[in-house]
């Protein structure tokens, strides 16, 4: 039995399905692909799969991971992406498959690319929005209400912004690195909602997760 990890991208129509739905889509793809993987042994047996870092509904990603255990040690891991892709809907594509190296608990941060667009057409120009964004990011503290297990709590996001750089290209673009994982996870929407409030502008943000990192900044593999 081998612990394997597939890395997949999620975009297009699959951007709009929740984590729970993604789980179901993956289970059916595995069943349909006839990949011989370990099943739970309870009364209601089902293929056992885990996801390291759930992705919010509405986000795209180029670096999602799913783990399972293949029963056959001789299984050709290189063939698995193609086998699964034949069974997956438009918008989820497996890119690679290999034995898992890191544990999900090793995850420390994630990088997002964000494209910001004002929804109230014409009221604010791209240049103005860019200026507002620089001013916003230069604030000494960015206080937001964050939902925690103990209720709403006010937190300052500023120290959590591990990296934040404007990106070239059409529109207002940002590359953003934030803490991620089971101990501390900051959703980029927290920051973007705070910016919307700050700029008094309704925003449409396209968010793509482009990297998941472990301690020291290495890719989670």
């Amino acid at each position, binding site marked *: 039995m081998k612990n394997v990890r597939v890395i997949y991208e999620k975009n*297009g*129509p*699959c951007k*709009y*399905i*929740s984590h*729970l*739905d993604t789980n*179901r*889509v993956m*289970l*059916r*793809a*595995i*069943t*349909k*692909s006839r990949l011989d993987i370990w*099943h739970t042994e309870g*009364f*209601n*047996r*089902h293929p056992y799969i885990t996801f390291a870092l759930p992705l919010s*509904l*509405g986000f795209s990603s180029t670096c999602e991971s799913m783990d399972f255990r293949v029963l056959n040690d001789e299984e050709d891991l290189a063939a698995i992406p193609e086998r699964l892709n034949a*069974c*997956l*809907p*438009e*918008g989820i594509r497996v890119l690679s498959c290999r034995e898992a190296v890191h544990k999900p608990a090793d995850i420390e941060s994630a990088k997002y690319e964000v494209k910001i*667009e004002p*929804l109230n057409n014409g009221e604010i120009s791209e240049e103005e929005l860019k200026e507002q964004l620089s001013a916003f990011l230069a604030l000494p503290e960015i206080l937001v209400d964050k939902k925690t297990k103990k209720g709403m709590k006010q937190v300052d996001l500023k120290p959590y912004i591990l990296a934040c750089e404007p990106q070239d290209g059409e529109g207002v673009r940002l590359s953003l690195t934030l803490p991620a994982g089971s101990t501390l996870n900051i959703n980029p929407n927290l920051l973007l909602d705070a910016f919307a409030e700050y700029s008094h502008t309704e925003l*449409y943000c396209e968010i793509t997760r482009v990297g998941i990192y472990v301690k020291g900044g290495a890719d989670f593999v």
Partner: protein
Amino acid sequence: MYPKEIEKLLLKVQKPGRYVGGELNAVVKDKRAVDVRFAFCFPDTYEIGMSHLGIKILYSLFNEKPYIWCERVFAPWIDMEAEMRAHDIPLYALESGDPLTDFDFIGFTLQYELSYTNILNMLSLGGIPVLAKDRKELDHIVVAGGPCACNPEPITDFVDIFFLGDGEEVDLEVIELYRACKKDGRSKDEFLRLASQIKGVYVPALYDVTYHEDGTISAVTPKDGAPAVIEKRVMMNMDESYYPDNFVVPNIEIVHDRAVEEIFRGCIRGCRFCQAGFLYRPVREKSVECISRQCHALCQNTGYDEVSLSSLSSSDYTQVVPLLRELNSWAKPENVSLSLPSLRVDGFTDDILDEIKTVRKSGLTFAPEAGSQRLRNAINKNVFEDELMNTCRIAFEGGYTTVKLYFMIGLPTETMDDVAAIAELGRKVVDCFYQTENRPKGKSPRVTVSASSFVPKPFTPFQWEPQDTMDELREKQQHIKNSITTRKITYNYHASDTSFLEAVFARGDRRLNAVLLEAHRRGMRFDGWSDCFSLEKWLEVFDYCGIDPAFYANRRRSFDEILPWDHLDYGVTKAFLKKECERAYNSEASPNCREKCMNCGALKYKGGVCYEKRQSDL
């Protein structure tokens, strides 16, 4: 693929996965390479529509033809509708993202009456004129089929063509005719006239309806050579009838998220309240081999690990135990579970329990429908109390603790004693649990009693009956509530006001078209959803249109009245329905099709159960 401009709206609405398509097995074709584009519209949400078997069958059937591209369209929920209207985005099909105006056919399935306003709303959202007379060209042909097509009179102003009965052949014949008419440059009127000659096709524009002064119908007169009586279509050989080996697999969770296999069409029982039991006669079974092969292919092509065996009464399948054994021969090793809905109280045996228990265990649901034996006889629900108790005992011994019981109130001939007997029957099931020796130890039973309000339907022996008024129904609901004395019973009941509206449209005539149009103008839709339904608003519409809804819901018809659906032929004769109604008045049950032929008329289809050997003949 969804239109790009909706991306900005999607994150503002609930469950955006409803609106994007792109599912596994969805069919995408090159629109330039097809002759006919068919928008299959389900007048309810994605989760409801995607659970419907008929759309799956016809979607695959149409798309097997290289010259047809069939796509799916669902009613957007009210939040999405508001966004679409605010941003001028027309209703689009999920496969191409193209608006309804790009389609040759706009087809609706008529599953129940409260979805009629959604049909109008979907047409208008798609930019299609809602009135048939305003669609003058040979395109955007609005067609409809499904159970409510048996009395389509309330929506004849909006729909060009109705398909009666099984759609597998007739739909294709009409599409083929359209293709030919299009090629020959014929007009819409010529096409409709030709279509009306096809068996199973009802073109309402070719019939004039006149009324007596008292509001009843005086005559239905065909014109332009349309047939006086329109006969339903039936697929007689179910093994050879088309069945998909592939379903579109939704990305988001839907109501029935599993593979579905139809095991037979029709029902032998003839429960007098049940429209499906008369519309789909005669019973036609698939063979065990055919079912097993189709199920296996479906599981392999979809990745589903659950199969539901669909029919009106699964335990009436003649080979039910051999079927379950055959299915389990591959299902068990492949971790596929089987579910057998619509089990009858008297059809539940140890053998069946053993086979379905092997994989998964859920609660059990039975529908005695009425509390007293007298009333069960009157409605011809041939289920006896000792059978129910025996079944519950088997279930409790098998480890079940939850039993749901479904009943109806407002049935013809019902008295308050019959109503109280519902609570009494629930109590007896609770007692049965404690009297079962091998019951699950340390657990207490949970019995759910649900009571819905009876709606008299066309083509049933109760088609002449008045529905109880809403006050009477409410009184009966309270009477059950007051008669329940144990907390082991949970009592559910449904609002009677939606049943009232359902009753109006179920047996309505053409004058209700005006009511629907006005309701649509006032923004009404999703009447089947309590979030949207307002009886008050509907009563205002009826009042505005000068129509008394009680005329349709609460009036007793005489046996010789011309009913709005009398020119449609579903195989069962009016004489038979009348005889069954009279037996109901005498609280007299009728034998089922396998016990004795009651001469309903379906024999003329020359097959199915009518030609099976009866036990009494052997």
